[in-house]
């Protein structure tokens, strides 16, 4: 009994295998988000000092390779490490406040964790080279299958964001709606003291709902049966954040990372169906 449990936990956390398409989509999405966040700051016209040019070169070469999937895992690791460097060296140590924000840390950490998984097995130059090589040998193309344990860690990262984000808000000031009232007042309402208590009450309701949803998502996204409703609620939550608050790349990153919770083979089958291919039970292995 305990042995079975250990074996299942080991298979889930340490040796999950499956289609590499989810990881590939994450790789492409994260590369584009890294460009969205940093490309303008790191463009050569920002400065011609040797250190800036070197940082710029590393960033653009690594993220370009990550995007097209050439030396995918190495490129992803270097891209993530560069983002961490920007956050800790330029942001924390150098005092550049915009790089200290949580959305930068999320982006950098998720990228590093993705490098632990087979993110170049699909939609990549690596894949194209592997297929061409197999064809040259007269063999069938290799399966789009690989090690996916990094995806488990990416999903854990997202659950951490929800749980600890909710934990931070679990206090009288936030739950009473005061902090949301400050934010929405600052952004939308102007400085007129509202007449009546409708605004304050609405903010309190929204505050409690936000905290409940964040705690729930931290757990629900792991449970297959809860995923459909979890995704709908999560997408709604992040759409609201994205539209109403200056969250930069945070919402887009979180929603992209939802891919890590999904069964990778189910994602593979869905893409096959969307492209009009005949669905199979074991898509990742079918080609092997």
């Amino acid at each position, binding site marked *: 009994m305990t042995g079975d449990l250990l074996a299942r936990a080991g298979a889930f956390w340490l040796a999950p295998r499956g289609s590499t398409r989810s990881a590939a989509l994450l790789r492409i999405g994260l590369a584009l988000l890294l460009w969205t966040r940093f490309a303008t700051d790191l463009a050569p016209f920002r400065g011609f000092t040797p250190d800036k040019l070197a940082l710029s070169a590393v960033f653009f070469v690594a993220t370009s390779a990550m995007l097209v999937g050439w030396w995918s895992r190495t490129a992803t690791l270097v891209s993530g490490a560069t983002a961490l460097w920007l956050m800790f060296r330029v942001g924390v140590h150098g005092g550049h406040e915009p790089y200290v924000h949580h959305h930068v840390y999320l982006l950098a950490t998720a990228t590093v964790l993705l490098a632990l998984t087979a993110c170049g097995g699909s939609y990549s130059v690596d894949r194209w080279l592997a297929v061409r090589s197999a064809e040259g040998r007269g063999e069938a193309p290799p399966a789009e299958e690989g090690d996916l344990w990094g995806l488990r860690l990416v999903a854990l990262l997202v659950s951490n964001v929800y749980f600890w984000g909710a*934990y931070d808000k679990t206090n009288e000031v936030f739950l009473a709606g005061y902090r949301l009232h400050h934010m929405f007042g600052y952004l939308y309402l102007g400085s007129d003291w509202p007449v009546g208590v409708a605004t304050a009450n609405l903010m309190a309701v929204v505050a409690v709902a936000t905290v409940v949803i964040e705690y729930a998502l931290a757990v629900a996204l792991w449970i297959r049966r809860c995923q459909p409703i979890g995704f709908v609620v999560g997408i709604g939550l992040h759409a609201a954040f994205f539209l109403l608050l200056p969250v930069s790349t945070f919402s887009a990153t979180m929603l992209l990372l939802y891919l890590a919770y999904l069964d990778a083979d189910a994602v593979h089958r869905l893409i096959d169906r969307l492209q009009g291919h005949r669905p199979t039970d074991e898509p990742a292995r079918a080609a092997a």
Partner: protein
Amino acid sequence: MLLREAWHHVPKGRLVLVVGIVGFLAGSPFYRQVIGGKNPAMRGWVMFSGYGTDYCQVAFHERGPDRDERLDRLAVLGHDALWDAPREVRRLKSEKQVRRQARQLCRELPGIDLRADARCATRRGWKRVMAREEDLCRTP
């Protein structure tokens, strides 16, 4: 399956790596948010904790012998609606800015007794900074 057999199949190197990463991912916010640690390498998930704290709300009132009437501050300053007003007029960030706007109102409405209820945002909620206790047109 026997425990020993299951353990035999666990990839030990990866186990150490996963335990380390999971410990770091979950331990860092615990260290920052529960214990109160300050090491910048350990990150918590504290988002928008200070956002909107440079913000005040105010209700200006014209006080007379037999009345205490709320003023539409934006209308007095010549703006038809909230979004027509410049940002620094519609949104006041501090008690100092509330007093500066009060002086502008005094110029527009000479001779009035101008009072204000005002509160400013802090991380701990609202801080009351004015409660109609003084005539702002006679305060230096």
